[in-house]
């Protein structure tokens, strides 16, 4: 029997995890072709490259040697132009055709910029790819004035680096609050106050109308107030999944490629994973795009395992984010913005400390956790909140207690046997293998 031909489009987190999952299972028995416009690297650590804590080599996840060792034929610098589902072949941007037995769509997302005059001008950057990170890094000197357009998670991941590089920051956000898709108003207010007390200018509720040049500097014009002058502008105004190339392919696309619990699309030999996939949501049971790193890891592993012939059902992804800014820790899990949920809130007047637990019946469906970094990590609460939301443990008996003292998460977690429920669960049906221990047979 001819070796199965797997074709992976995209070498980011989802694609790379699929490759290692396939090799973990088949030990090199199949053919894997990776089509990617960039060599594989970890976007998630680019903020630390910007902060000069790590060098560029640290960002690489798989160099040529690693690809060769895993028997991956890499078509780097190429993009998929279209998928010919009926003919089971991928057509590349140079016209080459790559036949496959199964295909993984893991093309990730790209940053989007608002359509305002000057958005594509000089010294206006996105921060998403390694070349973009290089450009931002090269443009910053101590004292540089940086205008950050957008105050979402991605913007926040680079605030520490920008401040440590000596940038003077102004953060502009079109929504009425910062971190609009990660925390609620109360938390956003605390974060804004914390940043302002540390010299960061924060202006939510403003709309950029144009970005102009003035004597070598940039001027960000606003509909709702005085303009902001800067030496460098960063556009952190959201991302969009790279799905355009699938038009006309017959693959069902809604917010992302709609996939089942095995990460399989409506076309049986086409899978999708990561930011482009609309897969099972752990909390709601519906399908959703969760464009976050942990989901990309799990999607990739589940897709890879199924492509390698192991039947693995994905229990669903959990929306979650964590970021710290200047030693303030901010985390949210699941349905933190569920307006129909019953909320237990603890807001401290004396210090930046806030937690909100959201219940549906006896089940914790979401949470927001905010506090000084030092205080948060003296607890087990970050991971325990994740565990409680993930398992959907029945906390009926604990609700009143947690409403009175939302600090008692650890007791509720321990007493409800959450760890007991979690311990037998593994994503691929056995102990996880470190990527570096995945090898192929000679």
């Amino acid at each position, binding site marked *: 029997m001819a070796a199965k031909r797997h074709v992976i489009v995209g070498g980011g987190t989802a694609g790379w995890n699929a490759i290692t999952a396939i090799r973990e299972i088949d030990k090199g028995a199949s053919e894997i072709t990776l089509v990617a416009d960039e060599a594989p690297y*970890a976007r998630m650590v680019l903020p630390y490259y910007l902060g000069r*804590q790590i060098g560029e080599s640290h960002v690489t996840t798989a160099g040529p040697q690693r690809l060769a060792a895993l028997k991956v034929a890499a078509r780097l610098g190429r993009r998929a132009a279209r998928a010919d589902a009926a003919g089971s072949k991928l057509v590349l941007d140079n016209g080459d055709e790559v036949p496959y037995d199964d295909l993984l769509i893991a093309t990730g997302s790209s940053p989007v910029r608002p359509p305002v005059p000057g958005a594509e001008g000089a010294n206006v950057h996105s921060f998403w790819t390694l070349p973009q990170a290089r450009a931002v890094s090269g443009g910053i000197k101590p004292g540089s004035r940086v205008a950050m357009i957008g105050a979402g998670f991605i913007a926040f991941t680079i605030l520490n680096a920008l401040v440590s590089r000596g940038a003077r920051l102004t953060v502009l956000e079109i929504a009425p609050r910062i971190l609009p898709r990660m925390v609620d108003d109360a938390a956003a207010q605390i974060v804004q106050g914390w940043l302002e007390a540390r010299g960061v200018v924060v202006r939510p509720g403003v709309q950029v109308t144009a970005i102009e040049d003035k004597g070598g500097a940039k001027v960000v014009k606003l509909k709702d107030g005085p303009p902001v002058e800067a030496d460098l502008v960063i556009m952190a105004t959201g991302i969009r999944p790279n799905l355009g190339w699938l038009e006309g392919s017959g693959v069902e696309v809604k917010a992302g490629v709609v996939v089942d619990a095995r990460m399989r699309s409506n076309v049986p030999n086409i899978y999708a994973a990561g930011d482009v996939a609309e897969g099972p949501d752990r909390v709601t049971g519906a399908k959703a795009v969760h464009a976050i790193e942990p989901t990309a890891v799990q999607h990739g592993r589940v897709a890879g395992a199924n492509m390698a012939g192991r039947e693995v059902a994905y229990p669903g992804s959990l929306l*979650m984010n964590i970021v710290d800014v200047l030693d303030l820790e901010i985390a949210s899990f699941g349905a933190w913005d569920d307006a129909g949920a019953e909320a237990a809130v603890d807001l401290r007047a004396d210090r930046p400390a806030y937690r909100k637990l959201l219940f549906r019946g006896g089940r914790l469906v979401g949470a927001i956790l905010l506090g000084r970094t030092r205080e948060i990590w003296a607890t087990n609460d970050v991971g325990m909140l994740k565990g409680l939301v993930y398992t959907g443990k029945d906390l009926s008996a604990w609700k009143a207690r947690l409403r009175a003292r939302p600090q008692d998460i650890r*007791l509720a*977690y321990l007493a409800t046997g959450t760890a007991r429920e979690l*311990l037998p669960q593994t994503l691929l049906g056995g102990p*996880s293998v470190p990527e570096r221990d995945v090898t192929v047979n000679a």
Partner: protein
Amino acid sequence: MRVLKIIPERCTGCMRCELACSYEQTGTFQPSKAVIRVSSFEGHTSYAPYTCPQCAEAWCLTACPVEAIGISPAGAKEVADDICVGCKLCTIACPYGTVFYDPDSHKAFKCDLCGGKPACATVCPTQAILYVEAGTEDWLASFAAERALPAALAGAR
């Protein structure tokens, strides 16, 4: 594999495990940086330590974007400080609450079984923490369920 087996009924709340753990991990005595942490129950009448169960799924390990977490010869999921960038993905991936972030070193940290000689087990004066050949388990669930009665404690401060 040898694991940290916890027998909560034997724990007296002396906190020596937290002190020894933080000393082994950081060189100083600071329980807030211990990776084994003691909970008190029923108005400090009983106690139990809790630490990483070294789970099979290894959520932290699979979540790491730079392969900074590996499996040590002792079988522990272990953070390599020179590779970890401190992005905290492991801390939200872990559903056990046993991967932490150190605001001083800007790295993740967790139980590494002290390279096969866990300090917590060594110093425990009542053998509430044993380092023995066993399958990993939720050692605390029944003990905590009996003692942390939410209804009785509701509203208690």
